[in-house]
């Protein structure tokens, strides 16, 4: 059984995937993921009629998103994987949206990064990205979208779509679908290093000038 977590955005979500059956909880809590997450996981386990030892794989959304949110999820996921001695898989927000909206036409996943910025990644289809994830200013964002991309998803999807003629917004959710995180986690290789957050933004800090 796989346990999936996402605390990167407004939602706090968890799911248990057992073969094809998925039990999930997804709540738009805005903030306070740290207080909410463990209780939600335990409730989902109960509904799935699962005990901790039944879980043999963890999947966790790695962002981008709120820095604190990313760390709440990943610290929990990595702690659980350590406690259960099982693999832990990271799934990005972009991969989750792309998987959920797999189709023949290219897709742009765009997330509102606040401070007048957008995080985005474009996909040819569910399995093939067109470029690495990046963070860019809202003004310059539409230029980062290749011409043939006309489907948009994510919290900044609508905003971006207004700048592209003929664009269609297929999923404006502020958080990625937890089912997609679970299914991608189940399909992933397990021999990778523990997942790291996808911050896409350096910490605010200035290198000190010479003293005096």
């Amino acid at each position, binding site marked *: 059984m796989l346990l999936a977590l996402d605390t990167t955005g407004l939602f706090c979500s968890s799911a248990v995937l057992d073969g094809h059956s998925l039990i999930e909880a997804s709540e738009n809590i805005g903030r306070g993921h740290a207080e909410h997450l*463990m209780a939600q996981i*335990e409730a989902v386990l109960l509904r799935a009629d699962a005990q*901790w030892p039944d879980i043999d794989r963890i999947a966790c959304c790695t962002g981008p998103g709120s820095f604190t949110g990313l760390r*709440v999820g990943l*610290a929990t996921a*990595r*702690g659980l994987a*350590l406690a259960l001695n099982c693999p832990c898989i990271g799934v990005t927000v972009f991969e989750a949206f792309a998987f959920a909206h797999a189709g023949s036409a290219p897709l742009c996943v765009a997330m509102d990064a606040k401070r007048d910025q957008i995080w985005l990644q474009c996909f040819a289809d569910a399995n093939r990205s067109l470029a690495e994830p990046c963070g860019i200013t809202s003004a310059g964002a539409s230029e980062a979208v290749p011409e043939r991309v006309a489907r948009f998803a994510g919290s900044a999807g609508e905003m971006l779509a207004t700048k592209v003629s003929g664009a269609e917004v297929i999923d404006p959710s502020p958080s990625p679908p937890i089912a997609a995180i679970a299914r991608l986690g189940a399909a992933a290789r397990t021999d990778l290093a523990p997942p790291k957050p996808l911050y896409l933004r350096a910490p*605010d800090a*200035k290198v000190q000038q010479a003293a005096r």
Partner: protein
Amino acid sequence: MIVLGIETSCDETAAAVVRGSESVDSPGEILSNRILSQIADHAPFGGVVPEIAARAHLEALDSIVVSALEEADTSLTQLDAIAVTTGPGLAGGLIVGAMTARALAAVHDKPLFSINHLEGHALTARLTDGLAFPYLLLLVSGGHTQILLVRGVGQYERWATTIDDALGEAFDKTAKLLGLPYPGGPQVEMAAKNGSPQAHAFPRPLSGRDTLDMSFSGLKTAVRKAVLEPQELDDNIIADICASFQQAVGDVLADRLERAMQRYETQFGAERHLVIAGGVAANAALRHRLETLCEDRSWSLCAPPSALCTDNAAMIAWAGVERLRAGLFDTDEDGSGGGQTGIRPRWPLDMHAKSRVGAGRKGAKA
């Protein structure tokens, strides 16, 4: 009983396993004590950058826990409890520690203790020496400068605090003004060895005043003036400033402590123990000063080894042992928040003490 401790409140990622016996005043045994310092990560910025610290904690904590368990030759199943620092400190790091600890405790169904970082410092002398209550504690670190009366587990009275900078902060700022690398405390101590403590008449803020509180920002200003005077700083000038600064600090500490000791003596009489903790307690010159003070007043001085004076997880695990054997479990009511994350970036050890303006980098919050 065996307890795993986790500490991520500032710039050290740490995990440790400590064994305690059931009997109340016997010392503990440190089975492992792993620390990963982030000093190098923060050095270019001249101080701890919270977001950099939080990122580094997440990156390292799970493997630090594994290595602490391995070194102690134990496993999560064998633990009696898990203890984690939930404040005071930087929220980003505290969250990483708290979530990790909660995950471990949930899966293995272990009691989880949310520990106040300062309580860890306050109880270290019992881990190392089995010191009986009560005793007086001087806590002097980069974030805190306090004199505390330690009456028992969970029973702390804050007698004094800094009203502005923490003492370690004063050392660090002095070093910065002199162009010495971060963290400055050890650098200042080293430079002071070759200087004259009488070269500069730096102020002794609040000395002789009828208060136990301390103040170090005036001292910093005086150092700045002394730095700006000469055309150019050379090693001799730096040494003199450091020696004079350290002398002033020693005088202030001795003056305050002497008053605190008098107060303690009228309350408790014979059992006179002073414990020092925190990074600044590693300073040999200051230690020597306090030794003399204690000798003169027939007090015993307990100074845990440096590695246990600065931030570490053994002291957090030990606080867990103390709470476990005292039956002081986390409750939601007292705000230590067993069921919640309960991270508390501001968390005074003495809940009854009034907070002071300023009060150091973490002091006002603590």
